[in-house]
């Protein structure tokens, strides 16, 4: 068993620490006996109790989760297709259409999508938000999948085709498992982007649609209370649970360590 360089371990641990120190503060402060998210005063479970009674916040969290799951699912499928297409074929329009939503300022995207939906007389609501999220998530998935495919050995796929496999079977049994780590990475990014999006969601949400970021950002001026820390902590745990359960249920699909 080859030893990993201690420098590698140290650098990686430093990176994890950088990621987790703020998060630890977030979780710890959800038990903070003070309205402000500014300093530790004392321990309390009050915020979790308040959260349990706060139907609006729980509904908002549910909406966010629902939109994020749907949007990341669709964006992953479409983004994977786009990533494969970008790698295999010389396309002129798709590369721009994939990259531009990442570059374009969210506020412009939000306003223009709102105008677009209004023009089409499309009722704003959860669906309009999901449609908007998918649009800007596709690019992230596509770029990661394409990077995964870059330099990839196509000889395996060619061999499968030579053995008589249809393109679809070749894709499903050869290409897809090879790119799976890229697909999973893209899906994780898409989910993360969707669950925390504010600007585009603000403009495309309907008159009765509240997602968690919309609710929390509207509190920005009046001080975001530890109830938000509590709901965030719970949402993180719930999402982690969902993914772990999904992974256990489908070991062949989601494992990103697949070997051929």
């Amino acid at each position, binding site marked *: 068993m080859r030893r990993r360089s201690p420098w590698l371990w140290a650098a990686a641990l430093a990176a994890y620490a950088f990621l987790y120190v703020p998060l630890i503060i977030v979780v710890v402060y959800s038990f903070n006996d003070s309205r*402000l998210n500014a300093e530790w005063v004392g321990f309390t479970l009050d915020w979790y109790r308040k959260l349990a009674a706060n139907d609006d916040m729980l509904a908002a969290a549910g909406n966010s989760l629902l939109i994020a799951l749907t949007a990341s699912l669709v964006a992953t499928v479409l983004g994977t297709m786009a990533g494969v297409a970008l790698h295999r074929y010389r396309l002129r329009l798709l590369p721009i259409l994939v990259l531009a939503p990442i570059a374009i300022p969210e506020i412009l995207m939000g306003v223009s999508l709102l105008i677009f939906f209004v023009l089409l007389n499309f009722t704003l609501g959860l669906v309009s938000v999901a449609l908007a999220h998918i649009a800007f998530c596709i690019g992230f998935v596509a770029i990661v999948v394409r990077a995964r495919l870059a330099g990839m050995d196509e000889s395996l796929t060619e061999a499968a085709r030579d053995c008589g496999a249809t393109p679809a079977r070749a894709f499903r049994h050869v290409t897809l498992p090879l790119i799976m780590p890229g697909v999973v990475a893209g899906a994780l990014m898409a989910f993360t982007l969707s669950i925390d999006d504010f600007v585009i969601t603000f403009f495309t949400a309907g008159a*009765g649609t509240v997602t968690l970021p919309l609710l929390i950002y509207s509190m920005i001026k009046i001080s975001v209370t530890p109830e938000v820390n509590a709901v965030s902590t719970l949402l993180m745990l719930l999402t982690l649970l969902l993914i772990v359960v999904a992974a256990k249920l489908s070991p062949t699909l989601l494992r990103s360590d697949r070997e051929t």
Partner: protein
Amino acid sequence: MNVRALAAAVLAIAAFATAPAYAKDQLHLYNWNNYIAPETIKRFEGVCQCEVVQTYYSDNEELLAKLAAGATGYDVLVPTSNAVQALIRGGQLKPLDKTAIPNLKNVDPAYLNTPFDPGNQYSVPYAMSTTILGYNDEKMKELGLPTDTWAVIFDPKYLEKVKGRVTVLDSANELFAAALKYLGYSANDVDPKHWDEAAAAIKKAKPYWAAFNASSYIKELTVGNIWLVHGYSNDIFQANLDAQAAGRKFHIVQGVPKEGAVLAVDNMVIHKAAPRPDLALRFINFMLDGRNSAELTNLIGSGNPNLDAMKYIKPELTKLPAVFPPKDVQAKLEQLKDLTVAQRRLRNKLWTEIKASK
């Protein structure tokens, strides 16, 4: 394959989340967050046998942008006066049926019949706040700084003592208003020469300021990292409550500058495409009742234009000059007027230069 299981799970959540489509009457209220007491909402829901669906914005401009792009579905909105002006002139509001809101008589006539809505055809006042100074009383006494003039955030001789401990609002309209007041002009002055003077005053003071901030400054004031702010009276009031709750030795005090300040009156209006204008009118009349109106003031320390509400408001609040300004202070408060396109562009150019200057 387990994509099916995942899809089934998504559909289940979807069914659950969209389920509460019971055929109940709904009033869609688009409001600032924490700008109505939960008890008030519940009481109204009981009275009207309907459901109040609330969505939120945190800035008038967000509301205006969303409506300008064509969003509909909202019944009652709560914009500030200059935004009401823009909405009325943009034809976005439904005229109020006065016969349905008899409680309008409760409102202090000083706040009715404004220049931007003569005769209150479209709006009724809801709550007020002023944009003033907020400060850490211990620190300001220690440093010997005045707390009743805008000079303390614009004049370098005072700023030197609090360098890096002052924040101002990240709003061109509010900061220009304060600078204009400091220079002795009206907050609604549109003379470009005066604007240049105001911009110069701001640039001179900028190196001493810690930040332009409209969102997290209250937190920093409350914990003692920031000692002086240009901010909203409601927020400063809340900051003091939080500071006391955290056991701090200092108080956060509201300071009304003697040159005057901006008064922001928030109003209830009905959107022209409101699905339930009948419920909207009932809600407005309900909120014009003194007891209901007072609940917000008691909750967040907002000013209240409703005379009938005075008897329900906590006495300590009625004594605060920033919340219930006495006549002499009232005379120096001004409500901001909306600007024309050319004026907005000029202001944005000056603002950008201020932000980009060193």
